[in-house]
């Protein structure tokens, strides 16, 4: 369900982090669902376990995932309730990354903004479908 693309400029840990966020956002990984262990995911993706660990750590810090000692790692029960200032800071960082990408692709401003709207619509539509539909 997760794939690593070596021709993607993002670091591998970021691809894993973003991939899990995406699966959670569109409901393919529902709240409470267990995620593979670091070792199993590293083996599946043929990447260094430290890379997976870094992605999981960031997802745990952001409370997308939770660790239950001795049981494993799970999708958090509800979207993390971040303080608004913290949420806005993270959002700003992500927006800057997206804006840089859009600029380097030469996308005019309305096109870049439009693409964000479409992506939000797509995620919302994905949520209403049965989870795990099109991996």
């Amino acid at each position: 369900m997760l794939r690593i693309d070596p021709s993607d400029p993002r670091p591998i840990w970021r691809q894993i982090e973003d991939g899990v966020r995406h699966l959670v956002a569109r409901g393919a990984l529902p709240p409470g669902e267990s995620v593979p262990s670091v070792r199993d995911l590293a083996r599946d993706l043929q990447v260094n376990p430290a890379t997976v660990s870094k992605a999981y750590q960031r997802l745990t810090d952001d409370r997308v995932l939770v660790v239950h000692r001795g049981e494993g790692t799970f999708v958090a029960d509800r979207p993390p309730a971040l303080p608004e200032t913290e949420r806005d800071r993270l959002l700003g960082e992500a927006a800057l990354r997206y804006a840089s990408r859009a600029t380097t692709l030469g996308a005019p401003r309305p096109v870049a903004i439009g693409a964000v709207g479409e992506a939000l619509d797509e995620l919302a539509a994905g949520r209403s479908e049965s989870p795990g539909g099109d991996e």
Partner: protein
Amino acid sequence: MSAPRTPAPPLTAAGLTVRYGRRIALDDVSFGVEEGSVYALLGLNGAGKSSLVRCLLGLRRPESGTAKLFGRDVWSHRAEVLQEVGVVPEEPDAPPTLSVREIARFSARIHSKFDRAGFDQRLRRFGVPADVPFGRLSKGQKGQVALALALAPAPRMLILDDPTLGLDAKARRSVFEELIGELAERGTTVFLTTHELAAVEGIADRVGILRDGRLLIDEDLESLRGRFRRLRFTRPNDGEATLDRALADLAPVTIERRAWGVEAIVSAFSEERWAPLAGRADLGSPEVEAVRLEDLFLALVEPPAPTGASVEPRGAA
């Protein structure tokens, strides 16, 4: 990452120089491998990889420079330092008439920490028969036996010299899966030479690229991936001079003229440097894409005929 157990890094090479007669095989090579990291050394055949590995294993005394494992000089303390290192040589060797089981029994006697059960499990995962004489195994199976033997005493460090050479795709994957398992369980430090660039892309923390005996690159893979890009310009207006000027800041490694336009691989990409070029119609609607390690490697080790491009290697700080 937890703090290192000892202050001495697992591996350091300082100024290693090796000559065969008048030919220089290694020219002042320096680098280090940090505890718990995976270092991949790449180079075309004849670049000096074998000479380097021979120095690291104390099989060759360098003309100048030193190789240290865990802070001790390998040449003068070979037997002692190699106790803590698992080695998979390029040409795995063992008495050809002994079966794998007999070799394991022998190894267990000389290595107090030899994990026999773990060894047997690995052999089963590799699908290598334990009762066949070593000499009758295929090249791939010999390599797998060598890896299982290297891992069995729970070494602090692994040195692997092209461990997948001659293996089919399935066996190659099994070797890297074993390595990934080892990294997950024990965080073993790994130094490997390989031609398996796709696998390196997934597991290496740091990459060294040797060319003609010199270490051209010694850098974190993430940093390399960050600064190299392939750029395409379809039919730039007046062509070459404008384009070359525009590209200068991005330190092009290769610039190739093609029928449809110009393609360049640059070594100093950043969003800030690229942004002013991205929207320039006179450069022919530029496109940018990430470069796989394989393309980056080939661009550095076999640069095409110079077209005003300059290689900008960047060594360790």
